[in-house]
């Protein structure tokens, strides 16, 4: 152990600490500890005057480390790290000891015990400070360039948002055309806009911006690197383009659920179609709603097709947008055509939020709603060339009701798009519902565990257009805030591998949730190495190492064991 000059400050916190903890006793007990060069008590360590005094102490005595025994680190670690920095000391040579929340207050019933505990805690703090290392935050250059994957309306919106914030964008679309599903939509709910208009508007905005490069018929074929510095190969038509990007926004959208052969007569009866097909029919018909040459007077909508399935189906989730989409279609039908009756066979209408107004509008139009449960789904039968739908209606106390229908519309949900290649290239985790998974639904809803790979729109979960736009822009804001400075500061509290001890078993790489452990060569051997850009400093890799070759900065064996020894006294 190298000899260090440590300054120790014990705070009274008014009387919050000193009323229970005998400060003098604490001082007396620790004054002879190794490395203690200076020992003071202070009424309020956090006060301005105390801070100034500390700066002066550090500078005049050339202290190597300081320990402040006061309140919870949650409150004042940044304060005293600031003190250290102002005095020219490395902020990581500062140790805070909590003798208030976990000292005087927790043991206000036992001042003697509180004092005894405070002594050991301060000693442990001193031991930790003695082993503390100066850490410097390293900076890595980061390309303020983002590859947005998928040029549906969400992807285009991400690209525009990023470009407006000053980030360069490569917008990569697998298909020949942009706009995804929405480009083929007519009227969109809760606005008076058309889907194709929205898509065209966005495309013209994309084209207006010089810092967006749009590639269609394009696909990522190779990816290397980490956040700030990814190198990718993009195949555009038949050429392969090397690009350097700082991050990805994955906005690959959804697929419409395709009913199985025979599901509600789909594929067997010609007048059973899906909602997307029906929407096209509405858009393409004028004056009269004609299907297969026959005028349609009664439309039966069957909800939750491919969503909210029971144990036999894959999709347990609710597809969120379909209730509103189907009702919106029925309202369009009423607006556009005379004398068409809409019959909604649903499992409980989920027009959440303002979308409720659409449900109300449709009801007032005279649409009829019938509710069923999964254990008794509507039966579709053919009698004499006519189609009949029969159901036990929950809303009519379980009475069986039947209607003739000219057209049966299956309200199909969203399923995750088949994207396993991209998922494995970018290492995007997939949730139980097979959609891409965010790292935390509320804290970090657009980030994945892989730094620099963000997700937005319906590849994450079913969403309507508004929600897709919000998440697309949120992803743009998040990644721009990381890349905008052109460099990234890495927190120095990272895992460190001692290569001479490492024998590469791969256990650490397996334990790391952030893909931060890579292989490298050392002395002709393969060993593990921390990719600092990805490391979050959680330390999950440290206990799994069979040769104990990994330490977490700030929590090294020496520091923790020093503390344990001190506390065990």
């Amino acid at each position, binding site marked *: 152990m190298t000899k260090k000059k440590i300054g120790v400050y014990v705070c009274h916190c008014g009387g919050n600490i000193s009323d229970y903890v005998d400060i003098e006793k604490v001082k007396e007990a620790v004054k002879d500890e190794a490395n203690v060069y200076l020992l003071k008590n202070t009424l309020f360590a956090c006060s301005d005057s105390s801070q100034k005094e500390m700066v002066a102490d550090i500078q005049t005595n050339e202290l190597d480390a300081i320990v402040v025994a006061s309140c919870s680190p949650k409150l004042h670690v940044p304060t005293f790290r600031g003190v250290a920095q102002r005095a020219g000391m490395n902020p990581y040579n500062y140790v805070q000891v909590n003798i208030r929340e976990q000292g005087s207050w927790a043991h206000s019933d036992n001042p003697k015990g509180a004092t005894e505990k405070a002594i050991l805690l301060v000693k442990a703090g001193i031991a930790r400070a003695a082993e503390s290392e100066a850490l410097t935050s390293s900076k890595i250059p980061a390309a303020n360039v983002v590859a947005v994957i998928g040029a549906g309306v969400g992807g285009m919106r991400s690209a525009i948002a990023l470009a407006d914030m000053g980030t360069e964008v490569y917008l990569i679309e697998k298909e020949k055309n942009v706009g995804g599903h929405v480009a083929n939509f007519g009227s969109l709910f809760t606005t008076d806009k058309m889907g194709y208009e929205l898509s065209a508007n966005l495309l013209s905005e994309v084209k207006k911006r010089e810092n967006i490069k749009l590639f269609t018929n394009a696909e990522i074929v190779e990816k290397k690197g980490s956040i700030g510095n990814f190198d990718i190969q993009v195949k555009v038509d038949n050429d392969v383009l090397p690009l350097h990007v700082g991050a990805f926004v994955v906005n690959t959208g959804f697929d419409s659920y395709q009913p199985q052969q025979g599901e509600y007569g789909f594929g067997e009866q010609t007048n059973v179609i899906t909602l997307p097909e029906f929407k096209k029919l509405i858009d393409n018909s004028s004056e009269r709603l004609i299907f297969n040459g026959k005028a349609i007077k009664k439309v039966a909508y069957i909800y939750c097709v491919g969503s909210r399935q029971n144990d036999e189906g894959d999709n347990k989730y609710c597809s969120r947008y379909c209730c509103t989409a189907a009702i919106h279609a029925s309202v369009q039908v009423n607006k556009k055509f005379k004398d068409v009756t809409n019959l909604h066979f649903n499992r409980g209408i989920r027009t959440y939020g303002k979308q409720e107004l659409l449900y109300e509008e449709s009801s007032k139009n005279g649409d009829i709603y019938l509710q069923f449960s999964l254990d008794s789904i509507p039966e579709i039968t053919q009698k004499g060339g006519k189609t009949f739908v029969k159901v036990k209606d929950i809303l009519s106390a379980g009475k069986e009701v039947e209607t003739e229908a000219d057209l049966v519309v299956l309200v199909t949900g969203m399923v995750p798009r088949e994207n396993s290649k991209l998922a494995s290239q970018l290492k995007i985790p997939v949730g139980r519902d097979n959609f891409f998974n965010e790292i935390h639904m509320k804290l970090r809803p657009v980030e994945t565990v892989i730094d620099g790979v963000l997700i937005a729109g319906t590849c994450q979960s079913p969403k309507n257009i508004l929600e897709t736009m919000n998440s697309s822009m949120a992803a743009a804001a998040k990644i721009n*805030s990381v890349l905008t400075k052109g460099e990234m500061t890495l927190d120095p509290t990272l895992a460190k591998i001692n290569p001479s001890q490492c024998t590469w078993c791969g256990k650490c790489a397996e334990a790391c949730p952030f893909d931060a452990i890579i292989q490298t060569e050392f002395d002709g051997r393969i060993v593990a190495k921390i990719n600092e850009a990805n490391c979050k400093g959680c330390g999950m890799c440290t206990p799994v190492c069979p040769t104990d070759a990994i330490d977490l900065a700030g929590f090294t064996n020496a520091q923790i064991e020093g503390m344990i020894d001190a506390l065990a006294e």
Partner: protein
Amino acid sequence: MEATNNDSMNRSNAGTTDYDVLVIGAGIAGEESALKLADMGFKVLLIEKEPSIGGKMILLSKVFPTLDCAACITTPKVSETARHPNITILTLAEAESIVKEENNLFSVTFKKHPRYVVENDCTGCQECETVCPMVVKDQFQFNLVARKAIYIPFNIANPRVALIDIENCTLCGACEQKCPSNCIDFTQKEELVNIKVKSVIVATGFKLFDPISIERYGYGRYKNVITSMQMERELAPTRPFNSVLRPSDGKVPDKIAYIFCTGSRDHTVGNPICSQVCCMYSTKQAQLLMGALPMADISLYYINIRAFGKGFNEFYMQAKDMGANYVKGKIGSISEKENGNLILRYEDIVTGKVTEKEHDLVVLSVGLLANHEITKVFKNEKLELDALKYIKQPDLLQSPATTSIKGVFVAGTATSPMDIPDTIMSAGAAASETSGYLNQWS
């Protein structure tokens, strides 16, 4: 050039702005927008009319569908916001007027209410609370218990410092005598502050529906009819009671009812839309209650279950599997028995019959309402509202965060009811839009 303008004095310092962005409201939407913009390097002023930032979420128990503890999720964000070098936070501050000037700057006047405690000196030791002789209903525990006239709003408040409720203060001065850091200052006065900003984000959130207007439910008259927010507090780790108890007599309830759509989807109270979160928070509370009170029966009276988000339907099915009793039918009326129990009358839609059930605690799943007072603050240009009194989003699908005023953006539940993930996304969108706007500026 309009050189003859006589306000050239103002104009001369028009180039100097105090902040790039003013964010009004420091709930999770305001915090998230502020953080993202601050991370991008913009200078942000975040003002909050309450004494603590964190909005409504910081007061919740756990959050659906992950059952994360709400405090665990908000407090890191709260402290990150509080600590960010590019963010200045003012609590107890209310915007008074916002005028858009010809140079596109916004001249903002806000009122800073006195705390009567010097914020930087208070250590949060709560010594003052022990000597204060006056109690008032604790608004942060939704009136289930009392607080003192000098008080720290709640344990995880940020800033965690005391304030004096001067309306209820007896001016005895005991706190001032007791305070170890001498931070109490009765001479503080209300201040009006004028600043200039380049852009504004409105993140003023929502109002909770007050069920007192639905007389049939007896809220306010029947002690054991409480709101879901009160139950939220009863379930929170920093709860007002030692356990989940009913307010009439401190009994551990064993037949609890939830009444969905209280104040939502209801024209009679003027709110025809669905509040988007009540089904799920009630389902969450049901799960938590089944954990806390294993013997209790929980019945949830609903119209439709809106379990639409990621993992929501699965969460709802899980609650059913755990034994939550979902009953289709809205409660028509409640009557109180002598022992404080409540009789609920409803039509069981499945059977089509009027039914009466007795419960010993009733929770009203109250909805969200628009909080539109902020529009009054905008003086020369109109911040438009939609038909439901939420902030209007003129370009809903293409630029959801823009408003009727250029340079003013909107985030979170100020636009519509929404859950926490949607709020965070909406706040991100507002940050993105604001950043794009500010980049054009230079």
